[in-house]
């Protein structure tokens, strides 16, 4: 399958390479986003992700399709987790495979940048004494 688009509860990072591998691909680029322990020097206890799933999958499809149109790619993967995630847990993985490395690097960067801009997923940062919806307010 050329595209893998998923919203899951838990991301398994061990299978990404096998999913993107392809006999015509000399290069595979993968980006993984994970939970950091500190945000602006405040200790984060967890992140909680919520999504508008039907629309999020549709937006992710659009992003993957436009990457497939912009670059010569063999496979594309976009997978986002939902629910509560602790420090170091993966929350998103995107990747692309291509004959040469330029295309997979550029596509991988495009996939994560555009996902962050348009896909209806929301992240709440949980600190010891408060919770904050990220980017909600100026």
């Amino acid at each position, binding site marked *: 399958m050329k595209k893998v688009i998923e919203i899951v509860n838990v991301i398994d990072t061990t299978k990404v390479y096998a999913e993107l591998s392809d006999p015509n691909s000399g290069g595979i680029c993968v980006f993984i986003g994970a939970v950091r322990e500190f945000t602006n020097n405040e200790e984060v206890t967890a992140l909680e992700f*919520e999504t*508008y799933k039907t*629309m999020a999958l549709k937006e992710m499809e659009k992003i993957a399709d436009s990457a497939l149109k912009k670059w010569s790619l063999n496979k594309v993967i976009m997978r986002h987790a939902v629910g509560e995630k602790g420090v170091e847990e993966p929350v*998103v993985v995107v990747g692309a495979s291509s004959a040469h490395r330029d295309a997979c690097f550029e596509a991988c960067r495009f996939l994560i940048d555009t996902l*962050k*801009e348009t896909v209806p997923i*929301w992240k709440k940062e949980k600190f010891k004494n408060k919770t904050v*919806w990220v980017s*909600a*307010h100026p």
Partner: protein
Amino acid sequence: MNVLFFGITKDIVGGSEISISDVAKPLNVAGLKKRLIDSYPEFSKLNSLAVAVNNEYADDNVILTGNEEIAIIPPVSGG
């Protein structure tokens, strides 16, 4: 007209779906946003406020009949 709420907007309205009945028709996306901001002033403090109609971002001038799946999209923060 049923409207879905996510993220911070769900917290503001206190639920994931509300039904709005007393709207002046025809209502477009801009009108729905105005109506929500009037009812929930907290909405005006958000970085952005988008509306999705049938799972697609909708421009301000899209007309709403009430038969669509309408959702309020506060600033996204995935990844």
